[in-house]
């Protein structure tokens, strides 16, 4: 997270430097802005946009704004202002990515763009300016390999992340936008395919090289959505830190206490933790591999001590849609104390309860002890009975030998060994 913040800060400074010039130019281009003033940016979003961005959107907010690429092809120059105002790139503004645009000669009639696809590929370099690590990961991916091979459908940055409406969204939604048959394809061989695709991020299997983890995210069962952190007054991390009394991550007891505090108000529907298998480092999701190399072995997760269960976090979804995480001990997945706090996360074999393992051993030992113990008892009792019978017979013989009256040698009611 720290590196992410640093990156954003750097990007912010980069933006400020670039933007200062552009905004100044924007002021000089007031005439241009006035021409487009009748097509103002939606009022709801306008408040969040910088003056420079508003200037740009004055024209680019028009849905019909296009560039003629020749041969009958056109490129839409429309930027949905309200979507951009909600995007994670809003703080950067237009100029951060479109630094080559000079308002003194804009619109640039001589700028040659062969196709929208070419422009998207060219913009990869712009993305790399800030997202260098993600770009490097992408270079080794199947997507990049297909791109180099000339595949027209191979995705570049904007194909997955969008161009202006860049919002955090689930990997699943991103992937199925192209891989529409993902669900039916998995259903052919993967038991509980729907559940797997819901709780395992695509990259967790399709980027086999990176390490995985379990993210236990707060879920509101009544509202059927992830619990969102309060905007402007984040509480989750503070609460988790206060609950983590020894400061080394939440153990099973602390996790139970955390959930008790989160669900302190009994009048509200209870929040639960739903586990997701994700990559430990999110940007490594760019290392998507050839399908044949994807993880298909059940044992990768469904056994005790499997690699994804070595790192555990508890999280809440931020208002921007990203998880805010707090570390937990890996033992929370197997603790008997977690039956309640992790009641909505269980991976057969991988998160088994250690107390139940002990009970199972006792059941097997008990099952063996019954026949063995009963047979030992049988031998013991029968030996005792035989001994008693022998003693009685001996006593009877002595009586008979001494001519004692009443002695008959009959052992009467003496028990007989079986």
């Amino acid at each position, binding site marked *: 997270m720290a590196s992410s913040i640093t990156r954003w800060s750097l990007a912010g400074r980069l933006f400020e430097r670039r933007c200062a010039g552009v905004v100044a130019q924007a002021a000089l281009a007031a005439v241009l802005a006035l021409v487009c003033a009748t097509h103002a940016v939606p009022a709801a979003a306008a408040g969040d946009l910088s003056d420079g961005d508003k200037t740009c959107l004055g024209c680019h907010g028009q849905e019909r704004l296009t560039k003629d690429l020749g041969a009958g092809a056109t490129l839409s120059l429309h930027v949905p202002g309200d979507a951009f105002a909600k995007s994670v790139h809003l703080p950067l503004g237009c100029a951060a990515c479109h630094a080559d645009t000079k308002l003194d000669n804009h619109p640039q009639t001589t700028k040659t763009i062969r196709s929208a696809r070419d422009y998207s590929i060219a913009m990869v370099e712009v993305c790399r300016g800030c997202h260098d690590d993600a770009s490097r990961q992408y270079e080794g991916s199947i997507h990049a390999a297909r791109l180099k091979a000339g595949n027209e459908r191979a995705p570049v940055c904007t194909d997955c992340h969008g161009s202006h409406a860049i919002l955090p969204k689930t990997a699943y939604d991103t992937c199925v936008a192209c891989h529409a048959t993902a669900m039916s394809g998995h259903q052919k061989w993967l038991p*509980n395919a729907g559940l797997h695709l819901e709780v395992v991020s695509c990259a967790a299997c399709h980027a086999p090289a990176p390490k995985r983890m379990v993210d236990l995210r707060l879920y509101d069962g009544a509202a059927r959505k992830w619990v969102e952190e309060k905007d402007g007054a984040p509480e989750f991390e503070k609460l988790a830190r206060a609950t983590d009394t020894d400061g080394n991550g939440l153990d099973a007891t602390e996790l139970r206490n955390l959930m008790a505090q989160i669900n302190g108000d009994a009048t509200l529907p209870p929040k639960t933790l739903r586990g997701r298998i994700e990559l430990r480092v999110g940007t490594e999701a760019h290392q998507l591999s050839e399908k044949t190399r994807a993880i298909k072995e059940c*044992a990768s997760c469904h056994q005790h001590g499997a690699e994804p269960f070595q790192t555990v976090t508890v999280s809440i979804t931020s208002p921007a849609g990203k998880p805010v995480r707090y570390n937990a001990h890996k033992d929370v997945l197997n603790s008997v104390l*977690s039956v309640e706090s992790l009641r909505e996360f*269980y991976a057969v074999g991988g998160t088994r309860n250690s107390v139940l393992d002990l009970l199972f051993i006792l059941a097997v030992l008990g099952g063996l002890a*019954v026949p063995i113990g009963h047979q030992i008892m049988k031998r013991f009792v029968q030996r005792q009975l035989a001994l008693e019978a022998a003693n009685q017979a001996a006593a009877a013989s002595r009586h008979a030998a001494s001519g004692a009256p009443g002695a008959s040698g009959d052992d009467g009611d003496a028990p007989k060994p079986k």
Partner: protein
Amino acid sequence: MQRIYIHPLPVRIWHWINAIGFVVMILTGIQIRYLGLIDVLSFRTAVTVHNWTGAVLICNYFIWLLFYLFSDKIRVYHPELSPTKHFRDSFRQLQYYGYGIFKGSPNPHQVSAYDKFNPMQSMMYQVVMFLLVPVVFVTGILLWDVQGFPGAVEFFGGVRIVATVHVLIFIFFTFFIFFHVYMGSLGHTPTAHYKAMFVTGYEEVEEPAQGSARSTADASQRPL
């Protein structure tokens, strides 16, 4: 020896499918749960066999249920409504298995077609057949398709609780198999009960001695 028809054919068919099925379920369940420690089958194979065997067992349960629902022999599952009598008889049965059997005492429970369970068997089989077996089936179905039955999973309190209940019953049945197989060998010969349940349906019971209401033979011992 008197031969009494105790185990009707549908019950015998149900019992042996059930017995084999439960052993398969326990073994594949162990493989599924302890992958890595035990690697006889792959996880996928174990899950597939477990699921199909479970489906067979669920269908098989209805052979048992329908037979008893449409037969007056369901009386064997009627509970003893007097707790005093139930616990007195149970204690007497315990004394028999813990001591009397070793010295050849008669079994305090006299078996018949309408009263084939001794008091302890009676109580245990009511719990097993009307509670544990249905619950292990239901929890198994929920784990087989968690997304297919969200309401039922929620009713139990979540998938981990469903799994915990399923595993607890699996643990009980693991013990039960050992116990049951051993108790089945305590007939008047070690194979007497097996022959009766597997092949003939007839239990061999000693003729009651004249003037003695309780002189039944060892043959009336029934496997728990």
